């Protein structure tokens, strides 16, 4: 077959597309450059103001200092513990509450819903809360983080909205088979809700891990603070712990920032859909 003179028409490249790609790259860089500078400088022994793609003078001293300084690793461990427990408690309470709120033939269900919703409109405020926590001996204890974030009405409502999507016939069938409410909860509701548990669990985890102000308000004992508090105190209030390492302040600061964001940044690319899904669970019902 002879070659024909036919040529596929070239896809027209609009100016707009080029502009769009440039804008895309710019937006991406605006977000990534600050983060990349933090990471690079955490490995750089000399503090420079310029943006470098790679560290000039590679060092791990910043991280070594954090691992070996009690005032720095202790808050990190506290953060891990409170985040784990806060997430567990949060998931427990929001699944229990959400499940009870879909029991439509339960007398008092509406009152329970209003009992919960009222807390979203009105609150006692910072000081009355502080005084209650003081009476409960939770001031100056890291458990305040677990207790305070474990009960979250907003997440409970998200969980309820998700449960509402489970077909009621499944519950009825289980009930006829003689399954108790607890049995239905553990054998049917929870296994069907893995995606919601992942997203809402991540929301709890991010909240507890990232909390700074609760610690600032309630905790003064340096053994009980979390990593976010220690980080901000060190960088912005000049409260740098003494260490045996001769590490440049800049390197230590940036390494601490990396440690504070590492857990979620490491998980983020793999769990992005769960991170983002939380927003949409609430919108499913409509």
């Amino acid at each position, binding site marked *: 077959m002879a070659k024909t003179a036919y040529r596929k028409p070239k896809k027209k490249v609009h100016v707009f597309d080029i502009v769009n790609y440039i804008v895309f790259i710019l937006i991406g860089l605006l*977000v990534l450059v600050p983060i990349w500078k933090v990471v690079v400088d955490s490995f750089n022994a000399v503090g420079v*103001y310029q943006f470098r793609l790679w560290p000039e003078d590679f060092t791990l001293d910043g991280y070594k200092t954090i691992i070996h300084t009690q005032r720095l690793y202790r808050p990190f461990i506290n953060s891990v513990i409170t985040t784990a427990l806060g997430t567990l408690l949060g998931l427990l309470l929001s699944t229990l509450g959400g499940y009870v709120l879909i029991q439509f033939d339960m007398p008092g269900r509406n009152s329970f819903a209003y009992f919960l919703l009222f807390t979203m409109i009105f609150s006692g405020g910072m000081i009355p809360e502080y005084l209650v926590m003081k009476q409960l001996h939770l001031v100056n204890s890291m458990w305040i983080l677990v207790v305070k974030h474990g009960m979250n009405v907003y997440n409970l409502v998200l969980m309820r909205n998700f449960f509402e999507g489970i077909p009621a016939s499944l519950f009825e069938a289980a009930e006829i088979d003689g399954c108790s409410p607890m049995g239905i909860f553990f054998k049917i509701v929870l296994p069907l809700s893995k995606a919601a548990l992942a997203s809402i669990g991540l929301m709890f985890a991010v909240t507890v891990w990232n909390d*700074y102000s609760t610690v600032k308000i309630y905790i003064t004992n340096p053994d009980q603070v979390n990593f976010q508090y220690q980080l901000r105190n060190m960088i912005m209030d000049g409260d740098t712990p003494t260490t045996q390492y001769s590490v440049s302040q800049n390197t230590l600061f940036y390494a601490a920032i990396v440690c504070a964001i590492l857990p979620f940044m490491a998980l983020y690319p793999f769990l992005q859909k769960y991170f983002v899904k939380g927003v949409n669970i609430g919108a499913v019902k409509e």
Partner: protein
Amino acid sequence: MSKKKKITTSTGVEVRHKPLGLRIWNNRGYYLMFLPVFVFILVMYYWPMLGIRYAFYDYKPVGAPTFVGLKHFYSMFKTDAFWSAFRNTLELSIMKLLITTFTAVIVSIFLNEMGNLFAKKTLQTIIYLPHFMSWAVVASIFSLFLSPSSTGLVNGLLRDWGILAPDAKGIYFLASTAWWRPIFYLINIWKETGWGTIIFLATLAGINPELYEAADIDGATRMQKMRFVTLPALANTIITVLILNLAKVMNMFESVFVLYNNAVYSVSDVISTYIYRQTFAIALPNYGYSTAVGLFKSLVGCVLVLVCNWASKKTRGRGIV
């Protein structure tokens, strides 16, 4: 048996209702499951509400509370720092809301126009990222970048570009009343724009493609399609987002708390940070006064929620709580 209540549903089917006692007994498992939630809500939310009475008491860390009536409210309304904090709360949160909503809309439109799905997904992944960083981390990063020391990125670049003289002292951005607010808004844009696009992208994905086809047939340019199809479709969502967030303007706390310092109280202090300092940063706090300010904040917040709830019902047919 004749006393058994009979209920007729809307379809006319007669339903025999079990007596209340039996229904409660049948649901005992569920009450048991609600118990832990009930206890937590009671202790964490309702018990503090009882403490609101201290707004009418003198209550110091030592000594018993004494009733003083409205004294704290009189002194609060006569305090300049309180009014400044109230104004700042409204100004900062409303400006922040408008600016980040605006940038989120712009970025979503660009994302929506991107034909290359891989590029789109990648950029989405990137711009959601800062939302998951804590305010403490973001404040730390930007305070290092903006630091006037020799390692501060921004001041270094300003010297390189000749805007600052090479030997000039760096600008202390976060301690400057002129710079603090612009920096605050920029940091908010950096942190929250990406996350804000989610809801707008969902709306854009729901636009009927026929609208674009019709516009094509009419010979609309890309810009015209954005202007006459995309933007009107977004209008409702923008209003929803504004209403939802307007209800929360009094809550502004952590973002300011991590970024402000005593040099910039006049432009940055908000109600919650004011309460914090009146309680935890002075030698002899009066819990009564802080509680009174907190009560004022809660009441304004409550009114805002109810107003926004009403507005939301009007505009989109369902409330926000």
